[in-house]
């Protein structure tokens, strides 16, 4: 394959992955605070439809994106309210919203199917785009994609390098300590869930106004991305940079599927399209195995030196979720 095509391919991956970056970063923030927002699949579909609808109606890209963020925030608010204030199961409410969001997207979106709407223009950055190799890959994108790059860095920076970001980690790890240090745990959880939800809400319009412009109902091919995003958050160990790696890996797998298609005529195109999904989810096996129960008993049966060594090794490989993820906080 010619190098030129590879560059275009890689650039394409970065662009096509932009929506999932938004979703994954948003959900990473929410889960760092200790809340699981399982509704991602439904929210992304809903905001893709909604963002497109608003953009078409008002002929404004900006309003479309704004609409997406607001819808995403509202859905997240329902999740936050149900789980933080009403203390209902986060998994249950998230799943219901995933279903509901999806059906709402299809129902409300049917009148606008196939319409042509505004599309985010390409925005190559002059000078930078001429740098050999890196140029055409990174700097020949559009605004949402550039924002997605920035988002990864900003999120990482915020979570790990700023004072409020450290407290964010604290809320998810050990809310009792955060409380003792003066944080209003539940209020912050609301805040971060909503912010995360808004970011997830932007993922939809990035798709329907940029990556694959328009709303095509069930053929959009957007169904399922929300679930993938959830898996990538785990795979990424709740770290935006590592999660971004997971997103691009997924994008690469998808691209490979397309590229390898002609050389594998026996395998229908849909299979190669779907294949990256289970692959990403099954990577969870790798990052989770150290946490299984039988491991402790097994370790105890080993001689001392081996046991200490293995225990250390397993601890370093593990990605542990924020210790308080999914657990409502009550003091006294």
């Amino acid at each position: 394959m010619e190098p030129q095509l590879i560059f275009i391919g890689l650039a394409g991956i970065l662009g096509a992955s932009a929506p999932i970056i938004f979703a994954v970063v948003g959900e990473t923030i929410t889960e760092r605070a200790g809340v699981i927002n399982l509704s991602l699949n439904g929210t992304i579909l809903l905001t893709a439809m909604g963002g497109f609808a608003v953009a078409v109606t008002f002929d404004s890209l900006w309003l479309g994106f704004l609409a997406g963020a607001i819808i995403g925030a509202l859905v997240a608010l329902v999740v936050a309210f149900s789980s933080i204030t009403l203390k209902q199961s986060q998994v249950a409410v998230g799943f219901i919203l995933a279903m509901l969001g999806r059906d709402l997207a299809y129902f409300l979106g049917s009148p606008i199917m196939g319409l042509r709407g505004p599309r985010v223009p390409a925005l190559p950055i002059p000078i930078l785009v001429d740098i050999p190799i890196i140029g055409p890959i990174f700097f020949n994108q559009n605004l949402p994609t550039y924002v997605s790059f920035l988002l990864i860095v900003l999120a990482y920076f915020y979570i790990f390098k700023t004072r409020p970001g450290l407290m964010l980690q604290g809320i998810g790890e050990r809310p009792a300590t955060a409380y003792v240090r003066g944080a209003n745990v539940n209020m912050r959880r609301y805040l971060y869930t909503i912010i995360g939800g808004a970011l997830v809400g932007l993922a939809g319009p990035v798709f329907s106004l940029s990556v694959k412009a328009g709303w095509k109902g069930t053929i959009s091919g957007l169904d399922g991305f929300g679930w993938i995003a959830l898996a990538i958050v785990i795979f990424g160990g709740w770290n935006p940079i590592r999660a971004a790696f997971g997103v691009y890996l997924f994008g690469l797998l998808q691209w490979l599927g397309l590229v390898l298609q002609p050389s594998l005529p026996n395998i229908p195109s849909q299979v190669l399209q779907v294949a990256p999904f289970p692959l990403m989810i099954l990577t969870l096996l790798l990052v989770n195995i150290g946490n299984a129960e039988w491991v402790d008993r097994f370790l105890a049966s080993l001689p001392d030196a081996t046991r200490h060594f293995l225990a250390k090794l397993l601890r370093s490989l593990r990605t542990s979720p924020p210790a308080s993820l999914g657990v409502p906080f009550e003091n006294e």
Partner: protein
Amino acid sequence: MNVELKNIHKRFGAVHANNGICMVMESGKIQGILGENGAGKSTLMKILSGYYHADEGEIRLDGRPIKIDSPSDAINHGIGMLHQDPLDFPPMTVLDNLIIGQVGGIFPKRKKVLGEFLELQQKFDFNLNPESYIDTLTVGERQQLEILRLLWLGARVLILDEPTTGISAAQKEKLFETLKILAGQGMTLIFVSHKLEDVEFLCDRIAVFRTGNLVGECEPPYQTDALVEMMFGRVVSLDEKKKLETSEVCFEFKQLSIEDYRLEIRGINLKIQRGEVIGLAGMEGSGQSQFIRTCAGLIRPVNGEVELGGKRITGKPYHHFMDLGIAYVPASRLEEGLIPGLSLTDHFVLAEKQNGFLINREKAQLLTSQRIKDFNIKGTPSSIVESLSGGNQQRTLLALLRTPVNLMLLEHPTRGLDIESSIWVWSKLKDRCKQGTGVLFISSDLEEILHYSERILVFFGGKVSAPLEAQHTTVDQLGQLIGGKGF
């Protein structure tokens, strides 16, 4: 800063954890607070540090009454508490832990914080690496960090809750040096502990708590006997105890070593005879719980052997132990012993041997009613277990045990029960002993330990005493061992 507590009351449901506590703690002094588990010391300190609200009473600093509504209020007033399990953020670094919670701008000035931290820790000769992760530190080091953090935030009153649990002797020495330095600087230090030796060595004044009350205050020189008596109360006259009849060994531990992420217990050798009752004494967290769970087959020992009737059963799964007649009754009744949402009948059906595929509801109800009568449980066959009182839950747990049983392992069998229920529980247990069942039990009630055990093992920080003959042990001796003296 002088701290005065006036008439503090705190209730948790029916439990009166703090009953009209009045105390004065002076600056520049180390105030000791002594008492058993459940005496009310931790509750009082949590009130002082803002974690709980007192139901009644007043707190004064240097004569001025103040309101403490939250932990941040407390810190603003200069009161900081070092919790027994230091409240920190395990997967984060030392430096990050320091920064979180400090008031400041968005961007922490890491260099500045680092500098101040290193300077501060030098004063106390601590050796913490700012980049290491909290979950790699020992408990002692986590304490050091928390002390530094509280000082850094400007604490003038420092409360230390059971600080010497789980730290090495060297770390303890360092801690005490630190505390003496701080006292010398005019800080008010409050040292809460059950460890007699430490409290006697360190404190300028000791206040003793028992069952929610402040029963006495002492100044040096301290009389250990007097302290023990205040902590544990007078001994009730013991009944005549019959010497054990048989001497057949049913259960044996050889060189048993257990490792837990918190402690290590090494080299236990013990032979338990049929029908014998062995009491496990010691403050919570000293290792008795791990030991009893290993006896039950829940924890696998890293070294040593467990034998039942001569047969080696080390490492076999828990259900195998159960089948061999080893019954385990956990302490947390609703969390580990019973199933919320299920009725008494349900529980008895689950506990009995399965009879066919279908549940015969009528028979099950009859059985349950019988058990309810036998065990005097205040409830009906259809009562769900969370609606029962603690005492009745305990009776249920005992009623659920199979017969016959070779060894019964009980964690705190009479905790939270009134005298009548406790006596009744023990009569049932003794009945089993007559049938040859061995009993191993954990209790924090010294009278109970002394009265019902044939032999006693005392646990302290993972160390185990040699078995004591209960008949020849006094409350005093027991109390001292529990407090760590003589290990």
